[in-house]
């Protein structure tokens, strides 16, 4: 169990800045996820922590020890690579035993610990197989076992589930989480899958273009995104542009083309007269009477099983997406009213516009 601290880490590859000024604090035993689109620098960040890349600027600390100049083989991290990186010329046993043999442990001890870890990842009896004889999920477990068996100070996981099919992915994420809790390992997990990140993490960092956009618990990041990128990356959003007309503590009144909305300010502060973004997630709408009325005509309605999706054309001609309770019925072309609680209407500073991931619905 180790605390990991990154101080203003910068990494450039030629002209490209892969990581630009990242600072993070990861706690003892925490399951911490770095979430971002592909090419955002999250894997580079993980490799910097493992020592496989050297940062151009900044420091990395494990507890209070500065490990920035330490080569990878002296850092004591256990890493699971995206492609598993299992050695094809070694059996499952030899793959897992490698790190223990490097430590020069006696043969019995190696056997004992490999056996124990095989039980943990449920692979007993596979010792003599070769990686090519294993299924994707089994390979993934061997990679995990190989990283865990050395009792690493930090577990690093680089999109370990991205090569698995959907069902196996869900199974394995529970498994990884179980093992991590059992061993109380400080774990840094890199993924582009926002659902995976939310389900597994104690806290997560959303990253884009080499920068950390927001750090927080899954619910903080989802419900109180600090900027448009985080809001759009973590789920679908209706984005409406408006103008601030009043403030009441945390709550802000905004007018969008004549439609008056009240919502929570989640990003930078705003003053009366400022332009603002209103973000409303489809599932925040309700047909039950409440705050923030949206009146419009049903353009399209479809049953999606656990919810019913409505495309609603509101007064200014804009179409918003709303997911409401699946027993709601309405005809296409009919007039309906939808409501959204001011807790669920997120008001953001417009300077984030440039950074928008732009998934406007």
């Amino acid at each position, binding site marked *: 169990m180790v605390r990991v601290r990154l101080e203003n880490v910068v990494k450039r590859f030629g002209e490209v800045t892969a990581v630009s000024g990242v600072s993070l604090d990861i706690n003892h035993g925490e399951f911490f996820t770095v979430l971002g689109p592909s090419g955002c620098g999250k894997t580079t960040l993980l490799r910097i922590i493992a020592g496989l890349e050297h940062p151009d600027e900044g420091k990395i600390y494990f507890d209070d020890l500065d490990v920035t100049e330490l080569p*990878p083989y002296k850092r004591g991290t256990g*890493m699971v690579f*995206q492609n598993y990186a*299992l*050695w094809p010329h070694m059996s499952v046993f030899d793959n897992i035993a490698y790190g223990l043999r490097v430590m020069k442990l006696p043969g019995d001890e190696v056997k004992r610990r490999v056996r124990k870890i095989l039980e943990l990842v449920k692979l007993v009896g596979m010792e003599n197989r070769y990686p090519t004889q294993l299924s994707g999920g089994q390979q993934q477990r061997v990679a995990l076992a*190989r*990283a865990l068996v050395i009792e690493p100070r930090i577990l690093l996981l680089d999109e370990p589930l991205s090569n698995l099919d959907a069902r196996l992915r869900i199974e394995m994420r529970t498994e990884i989480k179980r093992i991590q809790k059992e061993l109380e390992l400080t774990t840094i997990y890199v993924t582009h899958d926002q659902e995976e990140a939310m389900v597994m993490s104690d806290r997560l960092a959303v990253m884009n273009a080499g920068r950390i956009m927001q750090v927080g618990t899954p619910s903080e990041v989802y419900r109180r995104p600090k900027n448009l990128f985080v809001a759009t990356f973590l789920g679908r959003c209706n984005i409406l542009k408006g103008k601030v007309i009043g403030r009441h503590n945390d709550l802000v009144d905004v007018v969008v083309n004549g439609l008056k909305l009240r919502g929570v300010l989640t990003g930078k502060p705003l003053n009366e007269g400022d332009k603002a973004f209103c973000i409303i997630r489809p599932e925040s709408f309700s047909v039950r009477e409440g705050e923030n009325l949206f009146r419009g005509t049903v353009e399209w309605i479809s049953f999606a099983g656990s919810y019913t999706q409505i495309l609603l054309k509101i007064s200014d001609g804009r179409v918003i997406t709303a997911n409401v309770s699946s027993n709601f019925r309405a005809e296409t072309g009919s007039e309906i009213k939808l409501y959204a609680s001011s807790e669920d209407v997120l008001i953001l500073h417009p300077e984030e516009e440039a950074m928008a991931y732009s998934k406007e619905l």
Partner: protein
Amino acid sequence: MSSFTKRLKRELDSLTTTQLSASLFILIFFLIVPLFYMVIRAFFHNGRLSSYYFQALLSDPNFVTYPPNLNFAYMSRTSLGTFLFVGNRGPDFGVLFNSLFVAITVTVFSILLGVTAAFIMARYEFLGKIFFRVVLLIPMLATPFVNAFVIGKVLGQNGLFNYVFHDILRLLPFKVQISGLPAVILIQTISFFPIVYLNALSSFISIDPSMEEQAETLGARGFKVFRSVTLPLALPGIAAGAAIVFIISLEDLGAPIGLSGAFGSGLHQKLISFYIYSEFIGGLGSVEQVHASTYALAVIMLAIAVAVFLSIKKYVTLRQYAMISKGGRFNPRIRKLGPLGLIAVYLFLLGLVITASFPQIGVVVLAMSDWAYNGLPVPTAFTPQFMSELVSEPDVLRSIMNSLTYSSMATILMLVVGVSAAYVIARRKIPGKDALDSLVTVPIAVPGIILAVGYLLFFATFFSGTPFDPFLNPGFLLIFTYTVRRIPFTARSVFAGLQQTHESLEEAALNLGANRWRTFATIAIPLIAANVIGGGLLSFVYSMNEVSTSITLSSLKPEQGPITFYMSQVIYSSGAVGTVSVAAALGVLLMSIQLVVMTVSNYLLKQRVAFLGV
């Protein structure tokens, strides 16, 4: 500055430092420095910087004959009948331009034959294709000197060619004798065209068929598709093969020496390579006896080879098309032929394989019969005598032992250097890596005979009396010439293996606590073992067959000579009856080793054209 030194300190761990310094040491000390010293010497006259030797060379009619003798062929009556003599008196442009003329002509012919054969093999389906595929590789089997001797014997006044086409079939109203530069061109073309053939073949096969299909859907047909799509896409590979043919033709000694065995002296000797060779075998006692014009000639040859190499390399890198097709494997486009096309293909291929594999077949016949000394166009009796002399004749046996010793040592050395250099280039991000990359490729452009001159000059001047003295230990130096000359290919073979191995496999070991040495030994090396062993085997064969440095440096101390040196002596001085047959027996031995190694390494590398290494 401090961040730079810190970075250096971090990147230059002990493994990288060792690998880098080992490869740099060998390449600089045994390649760059000797050549550099030779260039300096060529530009100094009476202790002053001067182009004196170059001027002397260019104004000497032996080197630059003006006007050139263009008397290509003439008819003459001799006691043996009416003859058409080809190449006997001309063409002759002088030593310098003869070499260029031969190299350019051989390259052009090799491209024509190689590309045509490759296109047929890559795109058409016909009966016996597998037979042709195997037989087309026969000319790759190296039998230095003896192959040229066979051609000389066949094309001689009383040779098989005249016997068959004049005496028996009576197709020719007169006899023909081909010698001089045309004979050199013929021999080199049939020995070297397979290099273009194999490069072109692998280029054609790797072209995504949809590229050609797209052209056809747009209305292009037949030759238009070939000219506008297929050929341009394959051109980088063909150009690389052609450049190599040019350089090895320039430095070739096999043809002039083999023809000397068949015809004695003549225009086939009026070449740069042979001129330098004759300096060595003229009985040198010390480095002072080497005529300074030799350095100048060597520098000119080096300059031509390097210029050709660099321009082709630039062209090839400029046109490295990324031919990665989306999706998985594709089936190459293979078509059936109409009856006329089929006849044309068979005529072309049969003519080509019969001509091109004749020397190799002839060598086997020479080794096992009385053909070499019966004075007749055909062999009349089988004899196992010469093959058995391989193990009974002390001189022959010694040359075999010498070859085996040098080649094994050289193989070990070039694997160490090749693996080190390839690993640094493939895996490390140190400053100066690009320089190492070019340094490893440079030997392709250095004719062996030039390297021999450089060694003679440099080591005899500065290391006289030491183990590196070429007059005392030419055999020891051969280990280094083999190593340096073969490094580009060994390193590339290893580099290819490393490229196919994901770097994360090594990173996983580093992550688990293994240091760089351990990672290299337990992960990297086992994963590229096939490439290392395959590359090593091919390098061994290369060393056994190496000609130009072997026969020049060894002449300073004949008892240290390897197989090729012994063969060259026998052929060149073909005095004692029967000895040519022993050289042929040695040729059979070399071909057998090459066949075994080709089979093993093809199996290892699972790649049909692997043995070429180009």
